[in-house]
């Protein structure tokens, strides 16, 4: 099944199509080129978001005004949140690695609707542009935080409409990606690839696709209601007109909590692929892994209320949401145990992506456990809207999705570019990134526990020490990030060409040349064995 005819067909990077230069990219409907379009746009916005974060941390190095005013700080965390959530982590793994690898891993030539795939990238760029435009037009930048809570979001003088509409467009882009993946998985699996022969990364994309499809419209309509509220004063969420601001929070989190699973499920898929490949051992409990992914996606839809424990919900709702929150921890824990059991007695190859997977496990567990603390009602009253929450979701969203993103980047880099990267610099970058991450977010648990609220540019003197440590961590993290990215770009010129299967992986993407030819497969493979056949 392994072809080594390197020169038979031009790779997707060398392919000469109808268009030249940049147009051969932005008009391409090839899923691999679209994946790279996403990769470059997401990395760009990630750099912007990370720089905003760096500046916010610098503001917090000392109490009082350091480098920016309170209003600027409000605008910074709003833009940081919108960009990082809607433009980086939600599309991150599905749009980049999902686009590139899903068709290849299930043995297809492309996604089901290649042109809609390109359209969703255009929508993505439009959405982010609208958000960026909102910063420089109207009566000053949005200052509501990425959550757009009512009633402030339709009372503030900040320029909300473009930002809210931009988020709406980004949601539409996300829906189209999910829809495309679902149809692709349903209709285009290679002959013989039954549901239970499909690798775990496509499985997680499948579950993610459903969440994208069924949760995103809720935020779409909610954002439209905010637009209508600002322009027409309908009164949906305006208490002076009889509306209930809490209902806004219900609707917002009905999407935005499942959105966390849009972020983390593909990350779990990528980590599963990495761990099984470098352990040279089939994933432990393959069916349980699938069941837990589906369970997380399903239960995750009904636990939005744990973002609102202190908002004034009824007791019945509080208990229900708290219980459901604890239930969703069970399948997550199953996954962690299965990853560890996969490594047990495997012959482990210590490569950079494997280190990323280990770092992922470490921060994901801390993030998960702190989530349980926040999920218990009594503790939540104390910790709500403190830096503890900030630390928790950065451990999950940045630590989970971010570490998996960079792990996946190093894992599939040879396949995508056809080159090998410099392992030494990659590892140095990873170590700095990891140390910086823990130093940056670790103290926030302590600060939040002590009562330091989130979203203030100023704080009491008692919180000073922790903030100094945290800010220094942000510098280490940022320098690690710079090293990682420079190393990956510099390695594009590396002389070491990647073989088709540098790591000994068993899924279909490792059976085709690196970089893959335009049509992926010379002929569609027939699958006879399970995805992780190491026997």
């Amino acid at each position, binding site marked *: 099944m392994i072809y080594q005819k390197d020169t038979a067909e031009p790779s997707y990077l060398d392919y000469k199509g109808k268009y030249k230069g940049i147009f051969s990219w932005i008009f391409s409907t090839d899923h691999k080129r679209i994946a790279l379009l996403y990769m470059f746009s997401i990395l760009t916005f990630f750099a912007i978001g990370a720089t905003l974060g760096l500046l916010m941390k610098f503001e917090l190095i000392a109490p009082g005004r350091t480098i920016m005013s309170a209003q600027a700080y409000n605008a910074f965390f709003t833009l940081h949140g919108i960009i990082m959530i809607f433009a980086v982590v939600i599309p991150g793994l599905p749009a980049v690695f999902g686009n590139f690898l899903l068709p290849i891993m299930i043995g297809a030539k492309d996604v089901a609707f290649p042109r809609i795939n390109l359209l969703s990238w255009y929508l993505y760029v439009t959405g982010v542009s609208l958000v960026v435009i909102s910063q420089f037009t109207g009566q000053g930048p949005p200052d509501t935080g990425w959550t757009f809570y009512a009633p402030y979001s339709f009372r503030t003088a900040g320029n909300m409409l473009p930002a809210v509409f931009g988020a709406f467009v980004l949601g539409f882009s996300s829906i189209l990606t999910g829809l495309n993946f679902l149809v692709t998985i349903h209709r285009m699996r290679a002959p013989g690839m039954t549901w239970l022969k499909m690798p775990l990364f496509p499985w997680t994309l499948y579950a993610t696709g459903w969440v994208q499809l069924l949760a995103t419209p809720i935020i779409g309509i909610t954002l439209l209601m905010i637009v209508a509220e600002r322009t027409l004063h309908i009164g949906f969420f305006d208490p002076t007109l009889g509306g209930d601001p809490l209902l806004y929070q219900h609707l917002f989190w009905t999407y935005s909590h499942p959105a966390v699973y849009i972020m983390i499920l593909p990350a779990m898929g990528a980590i599963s692929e990495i761990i099984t490949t470098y352990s040279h051992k089939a994933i432990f409990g393959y069916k349980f892994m699938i069941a837990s992914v589906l369970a997380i996606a399903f239960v995750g839809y009904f636990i939005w209320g744990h973002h609102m424990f202190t908002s004034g919900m*009824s007791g019945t*709702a509080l208990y*229900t949401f708290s219980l459901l929150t604890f239930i969703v921890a069970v399948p997550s824990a199953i996954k962690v145990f299965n990853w560890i059991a996969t490594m047990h007695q495997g012959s482990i190859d210590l490569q950079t992506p494997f280190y990323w997977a280990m770092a992922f496990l470490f921060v994901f567990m801390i993030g998960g456990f702190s989530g349980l603390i926040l999920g218990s009602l009594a503790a939540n009253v104390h910790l709500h809207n403190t830096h503890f929450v900030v630390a928790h979701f950065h451990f999950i969203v940045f630590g989970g999705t971010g570490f998996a993103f960079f792990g996946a980047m190093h894992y599939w880099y040879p396949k995508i570019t056809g080159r090998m990267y410099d392992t030494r610099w990659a590892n140095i970058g990873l170590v700095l990134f990891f140390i910086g991450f823990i130093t940056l977010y670790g103290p926030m648990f302590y600060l939040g526990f002590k009562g330091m609220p989130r979203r203030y540019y100023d704080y009491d003197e008692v919180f000073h020490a922790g903030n100094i440590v945290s800010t220094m961590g942000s510098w280490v993290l940022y320098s690690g990030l710079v090293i990682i990215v420079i190393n990956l770009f510099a390695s594009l010129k590396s002389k070491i060409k990647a073989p088709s299967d540098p790591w000994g992986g068993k899924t279909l993407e490792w059976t085709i040349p690196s970089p893959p030819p335009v049509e992926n497969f010379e002929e569609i493979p027939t699958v006879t064995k399970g995805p992780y056949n190491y026997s």
Partner: protein
Amino acid sequence: MENEKNHIIPYRTFLFVLAGLITLTLTSAVVTQISLGTFTVAIALIIATIKSSLVLRVFMHLKFESRMFSLAVIAVVLLIATVIIITLLDYLYR
């Protein structure tokens, strides 16, 4: 496969269904004018559900597609119902 896809529904089926839909519409309009208290809502919604299942099964061909489509539609409807119920858990007991 090809034959299954080209399933042709005769015109009269559609006209029968249309007659049924209009009858149901008029029924619901008349019935709800009689004051039945809390039952009004229930009756109106039950009739709407019957009408929508007619549209789904005949007009939208669910009757002739694979079972998977029908199951997915039911799942989506249940999902919306669950979201409404869970949200009301807050409002009913506040």
